[in-house]
């Protein structure tokens, strides 16, 4: 019982840093909101130039919102232990009498909170500036899709954190590499069906692919650009949640042992 309490306290403490950090530096808030708006603006203008229907602007906004979460997962979950190693915090985490999973859990909860505020602002600003109709046709379904996507996504992030534990500079580069190619494969700015059915199904190992597709189908049900029926997508997403959270634990144990054996836990700048 005491162990559980300690772990919950550790998770709360790790999440607290991120929650409190949300408003600590206001200039960050401005950039965190404006940068995604700039990015989605460019894509919306491309659709305008091509003469696409308005819904495509909505597709871009939904993708732009989820971009924030993907970047958070990559840099603040996946590559986080690389940064912690650089700053000397990682050894403190390992000295503490708690499970490393509680640290990852706290990071995930804090990260979700932090990113949600920015993501909401991006969605509202994007819809207002470009006057894009965003009446959610099935709000409850969209919420379920959103939550399942986040859980699976942060489970994947926790797994990345373990894998990146061994890396030095490579961690930075791998996280960097997982941006544009994933934007493409998951269909951040276009319906993923455009990639072809089987490529899109293959890309569904990334929870965002099905999450984005399900959310778009639930916001614009008459557009008919979905990959799979929403129910099937939600069921697969639920499976991905269990898979990635489970794999995160296993990867953490394996990589931690390997990092200890090879003496890489405190190795900086390599």
């Amino acid at each position, binding site marked *: 019982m005491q162990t559980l309490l300690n772990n919950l306290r550790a998770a709360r403490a790790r999440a607290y840093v991120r929650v409190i950090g949300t408003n600590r*530096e206001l*200039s*960050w808030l401005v*950039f*965190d909101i*404006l*940068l995604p708006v*700039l*990015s989605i*603006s*460019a*894509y919306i*203008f*491309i*659709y*305008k*130039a*091509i*003469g*696409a229907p308005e819904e*495509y602007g909505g597709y871009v906004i939904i993708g732009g919102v989820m971009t924030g979460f993907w970047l958070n997962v990559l840099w603040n979950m996946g590559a986080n232990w690389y*940064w912690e190693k*650089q*700053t*000397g*915090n990682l050894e403190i985490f390992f000295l503490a009498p708690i499970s490393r999973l509680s640290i990852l859990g706290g990071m995930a909860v804090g990260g979700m909170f932090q990113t949600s505020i920015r993501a909401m602002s991006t969605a509202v600003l994007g819809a207002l500036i470009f006057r894009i109709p965003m009446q959610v046709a099935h709000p409850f379904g969209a919420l379920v899709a959103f939550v399942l996507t986040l859980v699976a996504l942060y489970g994947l992030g926790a797994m990345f954190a373990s894998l990146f534990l061994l890396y*030095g*500079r*490579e961690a930075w*580069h791998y996280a*960097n*590499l997982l*941006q*544009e*190619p994933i*934007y*493409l494969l998951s*269909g*951040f*700015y*276009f*319906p993923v069906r*455009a*990639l072809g059915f089987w490529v899109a199904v293959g890309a569904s190992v990334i929870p965002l692919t099905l999450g984005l597709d399900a959310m778009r189908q639930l916001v614009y049900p008459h557009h008919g*650009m979905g990959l799979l029926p929403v129910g099937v997508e939600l069921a697969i997403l639920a499976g991905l949640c269990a898979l990635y959270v489970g794999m995160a634990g296993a990867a953490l144990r394996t990589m931690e042992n390997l990092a200890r054996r090879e003496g890489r836990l405190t190795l900086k*700048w390599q």
Partner: protein
Amino acid sequence: MAVRLLKSVRTSAWFGWQNESNWTDPLLFAGYALLKPVASSLILVCMYTVVSRTQPQGSLFNYIYVGNAFFMFVANIVFGVSWTIIEDREYFQILKYVYLSTNSVPSYLVGRAGAKFLLATFSALAILLAGRFLLGIPLALTTIRWGLFLPVFVLGVFSCIGLGLIMAGLMLIAARHGGVYAEGVAGIFYLLCGAVFPIEVLPKPLQALSLYIPLTHWLEGIRRAILGGSISPRLAVYNDAQLVLILTATAVGTLVLGWLSFILLDRFARSRGLIDMLTQS
């Protein structure tokens, strides 16, 4: 003096290249260097295809594709040079040693820009080759107007270096999150200079603003040289000679401004003891 400067630029370019590439084997690095830019271009291809429901072709698609390929230089050089300050100061903690060496810091940054330029060249070439052979975009060495392309390209790269120096100066007085300033500026350029759509799509006030950005004219010149014409009525009013003249003036202006602003901000940073500050912990 000039020889020493060139030696300094060459050495830092080599160092920059090592820093960019020696974390992995060359094959993986080549994949890494090419995957990101090709993916970003394929996003545009998919966006175009899903709306037009045809193969991506036509003057608008070519316009978008070529602009995106050459924007790699802006993203790499402007963002890369300024990120060098944050990376060297905060993560590798070597900026103070660069200051202690006999090289001048602006020449060190220009050298680091050289490594970024090389990377951007690989990326742009990969995108253009994919465009030529996979998408059928009419790109051929014989049809490029080299007399226009070469001066326009070189002047644009100088502008990017100048903008990079301005951003690098700002990074000297910013904390580690200063990287987002450069990212923001690159995002604004991507939006305003018509990198991936004709500027006529922008609201009127932004169109006017766009004409004051050197990169708008740079991309226009590149497209005219490669694709043979312009689809932007607002930019078509300038003939080739006028375009080169505008680019020459803005390239010289940006370089001088970049150099001066860096020296000024560098003095300020030194007087405040910011050169070796760590804001990451």
